[in-house]
């Protein structure tokens, strides 16, 4: 009984503390993710205050957080949007993949983390944070801008890339050989194609399985289905997150919209726990040695995302200022970089420093992204004046 009381107090303090951090974050115009991570770092091993008694609950909650993050990522775009998005944005999408995955992979190889570490770090630096970006674009009133569909179509492409990347990563983390890795690529491409076909042709049957006019029943069914699929996927050595993600893609239409609305608060709650747990499991003393690399990666991958956005927007005939805005909007990295690092560390197939580097990197990028989106216009304008002194 006494133990329960202490656990409740600790859990309450954690949630309340996260609430305060979240409020502070949005007030100063950044994403709360870096603050959650810092909160986790402060509590965990080697941190200021060790937390006992709730670690089991916290780690399960963190797992559910990952599942919900990816389920909602899958729900975000309809299968139709994914297919048209891929058709229209494939060139910019490939450029995005090459420019932003390479720096992460290169640093991992330089640090001697081997090919698996390189693939994991490539994912960490590649994937933009669609959550942060959507929020920032909305806050800055840029949803009506002409470059915004360009930004969104790149995010759609990244979404699809994740569907192929995550199964490959989990196969490699499970210790697959090169041949096994190639099989994983083949299998994941087939699976994603099957899921897309199911979503396009029979999406309403999948939706019917979970849909219900009663919000309560609907919530239980969606959440139940997600955890079931995730658990089964996990049993089959595909990551739980991948299963939830594919389920999200298969659910379509109004069911997907309603599910998103219902699950968003749950996701925010459990995802916050996930970031805290990730921070908890990262020893803060491992961060300083990799901080230099994190700063270097942050610098390079900010430039590469700006270049991606610039290129994609120019292809659509958008002016210079719009191109700069599209580039800056894409800079933010966040939840999915941490999800990838979390998968890698949980599998135990990579060095612990990877968690430290990913943490430091996301801490920088989740702050830098919204700031870049905000300051891009004045910066671009003053650059323009400096470059063209005669017309000024």
């Amino acid at each position, binding site marked *: 009984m006494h133990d329960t009381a202490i656990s409740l107090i600790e859990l309450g303090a954690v949630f309340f503390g996260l609430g305060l951090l979240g409020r502070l974050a949005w007030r100063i115009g950044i994403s709360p993710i870096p603050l959650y991570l810092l909160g986790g770092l402060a509590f965990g091993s080697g941190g200021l205050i060790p937390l006992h008694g709730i670690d089991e609950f916290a780690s399960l909650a963190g797992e559910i957080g990952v599942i919900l993050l990816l389920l909602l990522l899958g729900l975000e775009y309809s299968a139709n949007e994914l297919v048209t*998005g891929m058709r229209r944005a494939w060139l910019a999408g490939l450029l995005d993949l090459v420019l932003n995955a390479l720096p992460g992979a290169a640093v991992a190889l330089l640090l001697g983390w081997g090919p698996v570490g390189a693939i994991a770090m490539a994912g960490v630096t590649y994937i933009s944070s669609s959550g942060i970006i959507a929020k920032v674009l909305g806050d800055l009133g840029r949803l009506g801008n002409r470059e915004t569909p360009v930004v969104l179509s790149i995010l759609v492409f990244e979404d699809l890339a994740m569907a192929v990347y995550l199964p490959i990563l989990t196969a490699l983390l499970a210790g697959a050989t090169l041949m096994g890795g190639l099989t994983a690529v083949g299998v994941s491409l087939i699976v994603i194609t099957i899921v897309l076909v199911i979503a396009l042709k029979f999406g309403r049957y999948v939706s019917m399985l979970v849909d219900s006019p009663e919000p309560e029943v609907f919530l239980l069914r969606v959440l139940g289905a997600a955890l079931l699929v995730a658990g089964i996927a996990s049993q089959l050595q595909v990551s739980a997150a991948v299963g939830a993600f594919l389920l999200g893609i298969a659910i379509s239409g109004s069911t997907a919209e309603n599910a998103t609305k219902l699950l968003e608060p749950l996701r925010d709650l459990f995802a916050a726990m996930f970031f805290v747990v990730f921070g908890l499991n990262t020893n803060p003393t491992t961060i300083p040695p990799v901080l230099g690399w994190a700063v270097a990666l942050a610098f390079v991958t900010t430039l590469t995302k700006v270049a991606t956005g610039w290129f994609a927007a120019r292809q659509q005939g958008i002016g210079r200022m719009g191109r700069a805005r599209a580039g800056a909007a894409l800079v933010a990295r966040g939840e999915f970089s941490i999800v990838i690092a979390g998968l890698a560390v949980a599998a135990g197939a990579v060095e612990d420093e990877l968690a430290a580097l990913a943490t430091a990197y996301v801490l920088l990028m989740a702050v830098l992204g919204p700031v870049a989106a905000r300051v891009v216009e004045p910066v671009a304008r003053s650059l323009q004046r400096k470059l063209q002194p005669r017309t000024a």
Partner: protein
Amino acid sequence: MWWRVTVNGVNVEVTPLPGLGTRQDFLSRGGRRIGVITYRDGRMEMIVSKQDDTDSCVASIPLTVEESATLATLLGAPQLVTMLEEQNKDVSGITTRQLPLAPGSPYDGRTLGDTALRTRTAVSVVAVVRGGTAHPSPRPDFRLSGGDMLVTVGTADGLGKAVEVLETG
């Protein structure tokens, strides 16, 4: 991904916003992009682009369903008036005007017949515009409601009186 539709001779661009909804906009003669974002959940936002950088917006204004209907009414009624004026321009002394029925007017919620406009002012109501749609040739049992725009034809004198009737009963 985007396509064009022509509405009243204006090219409207329709652009899907993956995960959000759709944007429909057109370039005005003054060089600004004006349009609407329709979100998946039915919310609407009116957008107006900047003058110097038409890629970005100077304002995006969230509108409720009622507000967008009202805006459509305000913008849609004059168009009808212009059309009627065009038809009536040969008849001297006849003017077409749109008269608003303010919410809280004595006739808010009552029928057109109750106003007895024809008898009292010799003005005809040729259409009532509500929520962006015109209801042509309304019958005397047509129930008016606040925010309606009455498209009327009459003499200048009669129209002046009609304004008073609608305001004060």
